[in-house]
């Protein structure tokens, strides 16, 4: 790159690195690390706020889509239940509306406490027997928090707080350990595959293979994981719980991302059945299996989600890099172009001045020969227009120059058209310019 040398000899030393901050001042940046620090600090604020706005935008988009999808359903549900209520009241005329509402309120709060008033109450299993409490404790610690069961006593709530305070970090460590083992197992497999493939490739193909293998291995990881932790459990849930396919997958995703709405909970159905010994039996080892699946599935999901997060970061980093590179390139290109332009201007101005001098001398000769009196013509002649157009052609070739150039002493540009060095059209003789044109 010859151009940077023209402008600033000091920057020639930094030619190899793409400069991300091209400024007019020729300050040599101290060390690369310092540059990195200040640059990354500045950029990270921007990154953070950019990502923040993106998240808010994402939320708003989600909100509008959810509203569009759900509100009609909700309205129809409302109408349906209202119709039911009216029908019920009609059918059973001895019940009045307020009594019914009272009952319903009680029923709803009872259900929230886990007691279902439908079915034969005496046969229902408790929501707080040991296995269900175990499950509840699990949902608290993993922060899934379904909410189909929740403590209602004050003591229960206080204990829940303390329990969670200690249990969540504990579970975090456990998950780290499990995920680590998972990752190690998988990583060993990948290493073996890589070794096999690498042996076959020549050395110069190393980098390409690595990337491909890495991408393929991540894809494989996602695929296998999905199969084992998402598809298989979804099928099992669909079979045992009687949900639809979508509902099973929905439950799996909502649980493993620890969102845990609680509208679908595995093993909940057992409480609503009429309690045969069969259903109780399978529940006994169904729930621990579900819990174990949650543990390993969470580790897998954490890995997948952190991978997606990594991609976001890589994308944002790449975008930043690209933007930085683009800016560097743009700055260098601007520098080149401005240097060339200055050169051209200088040449042109010299050229014009030469021609002007020649024109002046020719005019003197002519006037001395012909004895003609010249007069100033205030209108712009085609000659001048052509002249300025020719000179401005160069300007059109570099459209952005006027924006990025710093003022050069004795600037030739003013209001987008070129003027002669110190000379303006007011001084230029139209006729002389016309003569210059003809000479061209």
């Amino acid at each position, binding site marked *: 790159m010859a151009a940077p040398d023209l402008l600033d000899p000091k920057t020639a030393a930094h030619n190899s690195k793409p400069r991300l901050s091209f400024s007019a001042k020729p300050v040599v940046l101290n060390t690369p690390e310092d540059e990195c620090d200040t640059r990354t600090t500045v950029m990270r604020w921007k990154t953070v706020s950019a990502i923040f706005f993106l998240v808010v935008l*994402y939320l708003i988009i989600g909100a509008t889509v959810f509203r569009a999808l759900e509100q009609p359903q909700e309205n129809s549900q409302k109408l349906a239940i209202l119709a039911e*209520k009216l029908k019920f009241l009609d059918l059973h005329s001895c019940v009045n509306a307020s009594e019914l509402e009272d009952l319903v309120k009680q029923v709803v709060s009872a259900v929230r406490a886990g007691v279902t008033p439908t079915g034969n109450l005496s046969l229902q299993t408790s929501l707080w027997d040991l296995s269900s409490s175990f499950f509840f404790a699990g949902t608290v610690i993993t922060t899934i928090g379904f*909410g189909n069961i929740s403590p209602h*006593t004050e003591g229960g709530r206080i204990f829940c707080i303390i329990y969670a305070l200690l249990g969540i970090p504990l579970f975090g460590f456990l998950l780290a350990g499990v995920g680590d083992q998972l990752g190690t197992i998988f990583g060993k497999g990948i290493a073996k595959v890589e070794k096999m493939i690498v042996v076959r490739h020549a050395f110069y193909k190393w980098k390409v293979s690595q990337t491909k293998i890495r991408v393929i291995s991540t894809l494989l990881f996602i695929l296998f994981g999905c199969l084992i932790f998402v598809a298989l459990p979804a099928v099992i849930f669909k079979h045992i719980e009687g949900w639809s396919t979508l509902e099973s997958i929905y439950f799996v995703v909502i649980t493993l991302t620890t969102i845990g709405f*609680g509208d679908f909970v595995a093993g909940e159905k057992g409480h609503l059945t009429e309690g045969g010994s069969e259903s109780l039996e399978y529940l006994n080892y169904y729930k621990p299996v579900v819990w174990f699946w949650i543990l390993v599935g969470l580790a897998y999901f954490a890995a997948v989600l952190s991978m997606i997060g990594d991609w976001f970061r890589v994308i944002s980093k790449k975008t930043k890099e690209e933007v930085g590179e683009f800016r560097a390139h743009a700055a260098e290109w601007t520098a080149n172009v401005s240097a060339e332009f200055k050169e051209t201007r200088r040449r042109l101005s010299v050229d014009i001045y030469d021609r002007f001098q020649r024109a002046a001398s020719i005019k003197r000769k002519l006037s001395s020969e012909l004895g003609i009196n010249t007069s100033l013509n205030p209108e712009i002649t085609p000659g001048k227009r052509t002249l300025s157009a020719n000179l401005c052609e160069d300007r059109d070739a570099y459209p952005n120059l006027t924006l990025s150039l710093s003022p050069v002493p004795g600037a030739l540009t003013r209001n987008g058209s070129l003027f002669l060095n110190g000379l303006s059209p007011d001084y230029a003789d139209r006729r002389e310019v016309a003569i210059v044109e003809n000479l061209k």
Partner: protein
Amino acid sequence: MQSVSRSWLLLSGFVLFYVIYLLFGALVFSSIERPVEERLRHDMQVLTQEFLNRSCVNAASLELFLLKVLRANKYGVSVIGNSSGATNWDLTSSMFFANTLVTTVGYGHTSPLSDAGKAFSIFYALLGVPFTMLVLTACVQRLMYPLVIAPVGALQSSGLNPRPATTIHFVVLLVLVLLGFFLAPAAVFSTLEASWTFLDGIYFCFISLCTIGLGDFVPATQPGLKHRGLYQISVMVYLFLGLMMMYLLLSFFHKMADLHGLTTLLQLPRCDDSDLEDDREPIVADQPKGPPLKDKAASKPLDPSSQATYNSISKG
């Protein structure tokens, strides 16, 4: 070899301890809650019987009706009063819902009814959760400077050793967060929400900020609330800020544990000191180690304790 067997030993120790912890919790919850449940069940029985006796309704049709009501109620559609109350899916409520989805709190007071809504939530969550984690970690990284590193540095330069300095500052920060993000909001909630006590407010704050989100208490859901939209938005802001502070505390705690040598003792993932750098190696690094997932930090869950080393994932 010794370290490998040691790590397996430690892992099984963790699992065992975790199971014991769960059992312990189960026992305590069971003993506290069960009697209350029994009483409630008994009350319900009495109530239903009374209702049935007094009126001409038979048990079967009442049950049918109740089942329908309960199913509607699970999705937030209430039959009480006239049904022209506030919808659960206007813009701010939907945004609140999207927020609970994306921060993994997931109250469940409303959940998608339609199939399309469920499918959309799956994809929305899969993208939105890491997104939010990214934002939160980025914010926490930025906040670490003024809130943690600078004061600790100040304490150290006034003559304290690193360990006591960090401990003192941690305690101070903890107390401040408790005051500002638990006690104060709890007081606000207990005044704004009709049926909440102060304890309920604290319980709600804790359950939300740990992203457990049981959903038994959800603000801004009582009918006839004025400025509901504004209330919901301020709750969302509070949740976001609170989550950030929790992550900050946790990553500070992680750094402290590092400093005190706990993490190396228990072979837990270390806090990476160079997570100040923004420029990390991309996923497809040149090193022929395992994929970045292999890194311990990458496999931690979405709970707060993992995020300390989020940005050190590709360190490998």
